């Protein structure tokens, strides 16, 4: 039998018995207030950000309106600004990046999800994740001193010999170019597209694969006919997410693209992107209109990336409804 000694009520307990059950807890109010403050900061910051971008751009918007998007002259001295080359360059470099990165990323994602030996999956996935951890400026550094010389001396001439009949591969080869930017962007974007695709593929129920295999399909056929179509909108979402990242990349791009306000058909020609222009010209902007034009560019870039990312998330959410994949985008 357990020996139990007389229990004295704790002093606190006695006091509460006297006062009944009433006592306020002030800690709760303060705690919630502090947390709310933290949470409120975020929408406030965004609102502030949009406001500042808008008011910074107002001067240029007032002067150029929507012509800003369609004209090409960029003359700080004459205060004439047209962002068409920037927009063109942003879109083209991102497109090139996706053309290179998407097949690669999908191939890796499908391999890791469906075919790779179990032991390889985590390590390879981890290594590819390391690519995402390399800072943009380091990519740019490598781009200038290693990638561009290689492209200029070997790859570009080869491409020109083989595909020179296409306008994309004509014209002089300098090194810094749209294609160089596209290649670097592809390397940078690939981990994201790969990782999200992988999550999406993992969310496909096993029954799909098993059904195909049971019908006598080869592993590859099972994947390509059942799993990939099932996950198709999620994969599209991953691609668009990659696009979103490519649109906003700054440092690596500005270090390899040549920084020329020009629309050209050739991929070997130097070009410019919205982010690169801001990076290069902002700190030494000539006058208020120049600054405002750059702010206008920033505003446009912001709007575009927000829309693209929102679209991406919607697509990813549809496939990976509720599962962890929906929220992850590295």
């Amino acid at each position, binding site marked *: 039998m357990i020996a139990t000694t007389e229990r004295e009520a704790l002093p606190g*307990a006695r006091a509460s018995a006297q006062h009944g059950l009433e006592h306020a807890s002030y800690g709760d109010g303060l705690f919630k207030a502090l947390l709310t403050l933290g949470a409120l900061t975020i929408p406030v910051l965004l609102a502030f950000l949009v406001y500042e971008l808008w008011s910074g751009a107002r001067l240029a918007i007032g002067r150029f309106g929507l012509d800003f998007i369609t004209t090409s002259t960029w003359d700080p001295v004459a205060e004439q600004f047209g962002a068409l080359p920037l927009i063109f360059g942003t879109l083209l470099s991102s497109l090139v990046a996706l053309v290179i990165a998407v097949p690669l990323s999908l191939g890796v994602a499908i391999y890791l999800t469906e075919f790779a030996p179990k032991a390889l999956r985590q390590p390879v996935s981890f290594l590819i994740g390391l690519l995402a951890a390399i800072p943009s400026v380091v990519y740019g550094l490598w781009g200038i001193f290693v990638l561009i010389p290689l492209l200029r001396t070997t790859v570009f001439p080869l491409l020109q010999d083989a595909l020179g009949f296409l306008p994309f591969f004509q014209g002089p080869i300098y090194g810094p170019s749209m294609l160089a930017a596209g290649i670097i962007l592809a390397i940078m974007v690939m981990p994201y597209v790969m990782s999200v695709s992988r999550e999406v593929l993992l969310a496909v129920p096993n029954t799909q694969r098993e059904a195909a295999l049971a019908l006598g399909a080869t592993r590859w056929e099972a994947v390509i006919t059942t799993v990939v179509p099932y996950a198709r909108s999620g994969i599209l979402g991953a691609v668009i997410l990659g696009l979103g990242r490519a649109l906003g990349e700054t440092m690596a791009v500005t270090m390899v693209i040549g920084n020329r306000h020009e629309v050209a058909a050739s991929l070997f020609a130097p070009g410019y992107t919205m982010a690169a222009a801001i990076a290069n010209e902002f700190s030494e902007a000539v006058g208020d209109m120049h600054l405002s034009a750059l702010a206008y560019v920033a505003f446009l870039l912001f709007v575009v990336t927000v829309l693209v990312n929102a679209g991406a998330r919607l697509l990813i959410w549809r496939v990976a409804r509720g599962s962890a994949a929906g929220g992850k985008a590295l």
Partner: protein
Amino acid sequence: MPEPALATAPVPITVVTPADAPARFRVETDELTAMYGDFTAVKQVSLGFTPNRVHALIGPSGCGKSTFLRTLNRMHELSEGGWITGRVLLDGADIYASRVNAMQLRRRIGMVFQRPTPFPTMSVYDNVAAGLRVQGRLSRAELDGLVERSLRQAALWDEVKDRLRGSAMALSGGQQQRLCLARTIAPSPEVVLLDEPTASLDPQGTQRIEELLFGLKREFTIIIVTHNLQQAARVSDTTTFFYLGSMVESGPTRQIFTAPREQQTEAYITGRFG
């Protein structure tokens, strides 16, 4: 096993007063209805629980017994959409009165849950002391004394006295549940609620917890929800049978199990449904 005290006179269906118990109820409900949003889980239950007894609540899954239990320490309102009408009285005072601080209330009515939930970042000692520390400052010596006393009452002292500073997660399931019990009784609540406390334990762990209840009821009023009929028969003084949210029958355990008044009760007890 001590004999449960029997009523000596015919008793109304809702109220049980064992002859040698104090006349007041420690906990009492008055037309208590508990809801989740629009769904009524407990319907107009009026029950009284005498002090220093073990009161069992039985019934099939979904009958509302756990919900009822959780209204007694105002945990029910923490669930999604949980609210009540009616009254719950602790020593005659309505615990749902607007001035009442639920947190303070829960220091007088403790609860042990179905799955053991020791605090993972705390040692065995700190777990037991947690309820004490949150209520105010005690000296080191006082804490030591109370921790030891609670662990002894939970029959855990001998097993952990040499590793009080060790992680609580290193204990076995049964030990963790006894730790949770020690943690709950350390601050000397008046009432201890047990929600299927042995459901996730093996038979040995179950038996040890059941043995404790006989000693504990000397100090606490114990209300235990269990789906294990044998357990209810073994440990409790009174038993109340719930079905589909209503309180069907309540009385001394002996009477409920040998001569239930209601047909439903008999059907459940004899296993015709469950």
